């Protein structure tokens, strides 16, 4: 072996070993991506590729929407060391109110949606007051809320049973797609464009972040590792865009989901409010003594959870084009599971909304895959519960290693 090839070989081994160390150190951050990859691969094999078909992935992402927005809100709730068990039936109830306003009260859609969102905020603030001002443990307060909303949902759907929503615009939120402009090779063009845009933005942000770190002499991963990361993630985004565009393109649900993630990601990573939230979660006493209004932060986080519950209700009702008497059942399970798979910590102060989205997709992939394989619903519940347990165990074990 001459010097050149030997050098190349060493170069290769360096990337591999760097990759291995990166993984070990950041297992918490990358754990969920690995889980997603494993699940998708497994189901692809078990369903002879049906899992990764355009139609299935599109449906999967649409089915994730109403859970994903809940997971984003739940992330913040868990970060500040609380929990909200009422989000499921709150979503169901608010969705039913939306259906009633649209179909029975004849309220136009551009009024209905803001009304429902505001109602959601009020519900959330109420929870926040119970927890922050009265000091009721959030577990109990939200459990009470869950029961109350269950009853409220039954009440409003009692007389009519399922309430059908006929409003086209409303239903498009859960079933419609962004217009294509024209078809490129039978693929939705605008969606492709959107995908390319996302990739370019991603590369831009990553490169400028790295340049900044180098300027201040912080540790950065090697240039080759960085390039690998960029190519890998871009490839995934491209692949998903390609798959989706092959069906109907990006749906409004996915757009809304992405919008929520982008806004919350910005809020949590780049604003004073975000810092306050993570400070309160990390050490509430220190936050209080640092001049942060812990009660106010609690109100805001629960208010946001309420807002997202309303959004979830809207998406779910739009998707089914109706409000049912059992809408919202176990949404909170999926939301909490998604958050934990996504890397949130029970000890507080840790957790990214981007992780929770991946967690939501993981849970949705599980359901989708199991449905495709015809796994009975009873087994599905058990398996989902098992995955949640594994996610929490993973959280506890990786935390112990770090300290």
């Amino acid at each position, binding site marked *: 072996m001459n010097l050149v090839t030997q050098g190349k070989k060493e170069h290769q081994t360096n990337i591999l070993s760097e990759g291995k160390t990166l993984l070990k150190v950041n297992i918490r951050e990358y754990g969920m991506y690995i889980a997603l990859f494993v699940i998708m691969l497994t189901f692809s094999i078990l369903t002879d590729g049906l899992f990764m078909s355009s139609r299935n992935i599109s449906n999967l992402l649409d089915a994730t929407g109403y859970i994903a927005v809940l997971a984003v809100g739940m992330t913040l709730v868990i970060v500040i060391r609380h929990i909200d068990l009422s989000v499921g039936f709150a979503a169901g109830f608010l969705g039913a109110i939306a259906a009633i306003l649209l179909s029975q009260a004849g309220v136009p859609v551009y009024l209905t949606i803001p009304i429902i969102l505001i109602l959601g905020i009020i519900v959330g603030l109420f929870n926040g007051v119970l927890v922050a001002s009265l000091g009721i443990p959030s577990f109990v307060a939200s459990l009470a809320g869950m029961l109350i909303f269950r009853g409220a949902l039954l009440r409003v759907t009692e007389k009519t049973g399922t309430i059908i929503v006929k409003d086209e615009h409303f239903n498009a939120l859960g079933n419609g797609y962004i217009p294509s402009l024209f078809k490129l090779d039978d693929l939705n063009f605008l969606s492709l464009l959107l995908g390319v845009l996302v990739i370019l933005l991603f590369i831009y942000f990553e490169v400028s972040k790295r340049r*900044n770190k180098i300027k*201040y*002499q*912080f*540790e950065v991963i090697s240039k080759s590792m960085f390039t690998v990361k960029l190519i890998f993630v871009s490839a995934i985004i491209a692949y998903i865009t390609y798959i989706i565009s092959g069906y109907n393109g990006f749906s409004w649900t996915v757009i809304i989901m992405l919008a929520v993630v982008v806004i919350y990601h910005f809020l949590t990573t*780049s*604003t*004073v*409010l*975000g*810092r*306050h939230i*993570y*400070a309160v979660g*990390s*050490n509430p*006493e*220190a*936050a*209080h*003594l*640092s*001049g*942060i*209004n812990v009660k106010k932060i609690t109100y805001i986080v629960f208010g946001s959870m309420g807002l997202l519950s309303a959004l979830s209700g809207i998406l779910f009702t739009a998707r089914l084009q109706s409000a049912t008497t059992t809408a919202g059942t176990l949404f909170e399970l999926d939301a909490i599971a998604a958050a934990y798979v996504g890397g949130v910590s029970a000890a507080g*102060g*840790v957790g990214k909304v981007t992780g929770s989205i991946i967690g939501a997709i993981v849970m949705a992939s599980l359901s989708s895959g199991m449905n495709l394989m015809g796994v009975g619903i009873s087994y599905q519940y058990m398996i989902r519960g098992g995955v949640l347990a594994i996610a929490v165990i993973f959280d506890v074990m990786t935390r112990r290693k770090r*300290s």
Partner: protein
Amino acid sequence: MMSNYILEMVNISKEFTGVKALTDVNFKVEKGEIHCLIGENGAGKSTLMKVLSGVYPYGTYKGDIVFEDDIQAFNKISDSVKAGIAIIYQELALFPDLTVYENIFAGNEIKRGAVVDWNQTIAEAKKMLQRVGLNVNPEVLIKDLGVGKQQLVEIAKALSKNVKLLILDEPTAALNENDSENLLELLRELKKQGITCIMISHKLKEVISIADKATVLRDGRTICTLDGSKGEITENTIIRNMVGREIEDIYPKRASKSIGSKILEVKNWTAYDPQLGRDVVKDVNLHVKKGEIVGIAGLMGSGRTELARSIFGNPKSYRLQGELLVNGSAKSLKHPKDAIKEGIAYVTEDRKGDGLFLIQDIKNNISAANLNGISRKGVINDNKEIRIASDYKSSLNVKAPSIEQIVGNLSGGNQQKVSLGKWLFVGPQLLILDEPTRGIDVGAKFEIYTIMNKLIAEGMSIIMISSELGEILGMSDRIYVMAEGAIKGELPIEEANQENIMQFATQ
């Protein structure tokens, strides 16, 4: 039994990373005597008792514990309890929502087979209560008893385990005069019953009245053992031995003093803690002038932290009375945020517990109390934060690879500097430091003192709460001494010395 001694602790040494808590401590207690253990905060009394009771297991200390002529190797607390040693802490270890009899036999239940024999339990409990002279119904809940009676239940619990050596840590700290006297009488009774007592106490008058022997610890070493029967246990002797070190030149000199007008004053300041049900700050009159370092001395539990917090936005919601003036105008500070706005900063005594965000990095911690200073319209300017954090890291000489280092992984001294940096970034006019050099090595201590002097030169004022007399005397311009929530004395530095401070502190 060969010797008179029921307990001999021989050449005990205990070290925590870098800090020598105990060095070659020799402590001998005779059978049936009441032996008091005295020393300043940090002298090593609690550590010594923790070694004895098994909290620090065999193998984590050097030296021997000889109890009843046998070398002991306690691996856990229950080992020492089985040997006949019981320790009653200041923060009583009772279950408030259970009854007296349940508490007395908690963990030591009287069983018949696999089932608890409650009737027998209650009967035995009554016997124990009689022994300690406590006349209560054993079915009363602990939380319904006053502290004095709760303490007696703790002692009853120890008696039920056939205690031979009873250790009491500051038993009368939370008791009024009556209950204190009752407790001391009980100890004399127990002595007659052949039980040996070790009592850790700051209250010298009580020590003088009850102790057969008194051992003084200082800086982790045994200084002397005084014999009551020879009249050696006097206030002067004890105080002299508690503090008797020279103030070495470990406190940097200040260039010049320029002291201005009052920037903070409290008048008739009283704070009532509804959770404890008593006043934690009693009628305090205190002021700080611009450019001053005001030291607040006192022993643990004297109310200094409570005073500082009641001024710094009252985070525990005490009921406050009196006046608080900032630069001459009366203010009502209802939240730490209000205090920060008035230019007051408070560096807590427990940096890990409530001073730092341990899972976050240095730069996040430094900006935490002044996010407005690194943001515009609510959006954080990452570069500005990096620059400011880097500045503080270098000016405070925080030893860490980068400002992205997680604070929980730093050493105590560096953690304290980060905590300090957070508050300096707020740009205060008054910096309140609560035990600023606790748990820090000598080198870092000097750095912090130097920083304090620099801040004073730049026009800041400092309140320094400290349990280390050397620090108080080495750095302050004026000293207040607190005990039991009240100011017992105020001394300008020229008049202050270790003895008179300690005298005020033990009143």
